[in-house]
């Protein structure tokens, strides 16, 4: 789609450099860090994801779950109220449950470990959706509907009856651009980079801030690491 201007190209060069990945090792192992301390649950990343990837109405590749029992509501911890979110998209597992079960290999791990989805091959059996422990895949149950007449996305729209999910904005990586959600987060809660470089920001943050993986005990080994919130925000001073 050459004649489309991507949101990132529309920016001034200074703002653009913010979204650049920067130097990486010879064989990068892409990873994302999500800082729960910084996330304010604003859904900006989810919205830009929908526009970047042309995700139809009613479907989210990326969504914000709330810690606790109710949506956008504080929870109680040690007698205090706290409020945190869990931004959730495909975890790009090192050992994905989804690729293993796909009967036709329509979802697969790339050389560099990113988990990809081939909507031209998918038969729509939804076994991957059953197998993924994170509930992040979305299926085209009906004809895709979009809020605009035209396509906003930078990637091919997916047809009826096939599966789709977050790709880590794989189409942006060759240009050295971080995924859209990373670039768009107003709290800079998302950091993207190369896990194979021990000095990269992601590597350091995971090391120093105790980055944890979701459902670590199930052995999927996600490439998305969460940084736990550092303090409880009590309502009383």
């Amino acid at each position, binding site marked *: 789609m050459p004649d489309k201007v991507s949101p990132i190209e529309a920016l001034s060069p200074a703002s653009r450099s913010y979204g650049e990945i920067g130097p990486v090792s010879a064989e990068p192992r892409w990873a994302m860090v999500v800082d729960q301390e910084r996330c304010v649950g604003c859904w900006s990343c989810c919205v830009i994801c929908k526009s970047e990837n042309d995700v139809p109405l*009613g*479907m*989210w590749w990326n*969504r*914000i*779950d*709330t*810690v*606790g*029992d*109710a*949506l956008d*509501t504080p929870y109680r911890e040690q007698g205090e109220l706290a409020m945190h979110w*869990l931004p*959730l998209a495909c975890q790009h597992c090192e050992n994905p*449950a989804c*690729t*293993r*079960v*796909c*009967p*036709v*290999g*329509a979802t697969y791990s790339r050389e560099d470990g990113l988990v990809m989805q081939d909507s031209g*091959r*998918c*038969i*729509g*059996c*939804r*076994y991957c*959706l*059953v*197998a*993924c*422990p*994170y*509930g*992040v*895949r*979305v*299926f*085209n*149950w*009906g*004809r895709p509907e979009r809020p605009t007449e035209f396509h906003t996305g930078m990637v091919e729209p997916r047809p*009826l*009856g*096939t*599966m789709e999910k977050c790709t880590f904005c794989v189409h942006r990586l060759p240009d050295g651009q971080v995924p859209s959600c990373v670039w768009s987060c107003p709290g800079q809660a998302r950091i993207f980079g190369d896990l194979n470089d021990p000095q990269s920001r992601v590597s350091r943050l995971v090391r120093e801030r105790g980055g944890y993986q*979701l*459902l670590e005990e*199930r*052995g*999927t080994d996600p490439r998305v690491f969460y940084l736990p919130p550092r303090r409880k925000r009590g309502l009383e001073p």
Partner: protein
Amino acid sequence: MSAAVGSGPSVGPVDSAATGAPVTVAPAQRTVNRPLALWLGLLGLGLLIGLGAWAYQLSQGLEVTNMRNPMMWGLYITLFMYFVGLSAGGLIVASAGRLFGAGGLKPIVRLAVLEATVAVLLAAIFVLPDIGRPDRAWHLFRYPNFHSPMMWDITIIVVYLLISLTYTWIYARADLARRGSWLALGTKASEAAQKRDERLKLVLAGVGLPAAILLHSITAWIFGLQISRGFWYTALMAPLFIASALVSGTGLMIILALIARRTRRVAFRDTLIAYMGKLLAIFVAVEAFLVFSEMLTAAYPGAGFEGDPVARLLTGRYAGFFWFEVGAGLIIPFALLVVPRLRRNLRWVAVASVLAMVGIFVHRLNIVINGLSFATVPYPPGVPVGTVQPVGTDSFALSLFYYPSWVEWLVALGVLCFGAIVFTVAAWRLPLREAVHG
């Protein structure tokens, strides 16, 4: 079904080998009688309705079902498992009878093999409406990924279908040849051929039995190997599936045998039904034992990965289904079949069989729906991915309550009618009565 129940104890035609009395089985019929025409007409109507519903689903997408991202499998997959089970159960009973010399089952072996063939065919057909892109079903053969339990299952279904078709044909070919039917494919009905067929049948039973066990075990592993679903991730899944296959398969065999005798397609004594009733009681007991063992193991820790879904099954939203499964599907049939006096009464055996079959269907529903209705991520509150279904008051946060939509029911009806047509026509045209040698 009630027609079959009507024949009271020991009034049906009896086996000639046992009594020396003349055989009262009707030869394979060529003319269609009124009730048969009516029955086929009704089934044809059901098939048409089902096809219409499927066409509608194809045009609109799976949106017209009530499946959604959090509840991605439903009635179709349940029926797929159910029919695999019916097929495996029927063939296991028939083959085991042959292999281990339970000769008493001989009069209904052909019926069992035919039932197994039609049931596995239906199971395969149920895959089509379930997948989002049936037009790409050929990808399964073009790009197979043998890491996937679903691929293992498709492979075994194809193999098994071939085995059961051969099985059906070997059983029928001597009679077909005698009748001069082209379906005999050139085989002769000689003494030597008969001997060879007997040997072949034994070989087929030897192949068919493990194939049937494998078929249903693999179907169990589609579910039982998934770390994402605590309720499924248990080594007991395959044994449990085999047990439930035996229950539903034997139940269906009893009903079909009674109907086939009523319509004079096979002949046997009432003791055969009592014998199968005894088998059914044993299978029900094994099933109950496995279900109990599974529930206890999962529920004992009180909560967590496995405990939560089980708690929900025992006391939560799906408790009604579960206790129905236990009461109507396990306890009542067992109670009916364990009393010798009731077991000798065809009526009660038939009632127990129907209950056991329904019970296993509900059991399968429980596996699929309860297994899936648990969000696995630790902090579930959030917007669900996919369309929100307004259900009750707690609709917004997570809608995981599933009931099939009318399209799903109608498509299922169509497939069932198709199966009934195939079975009826085959049972009407093929020689079903097993010749009893020595």
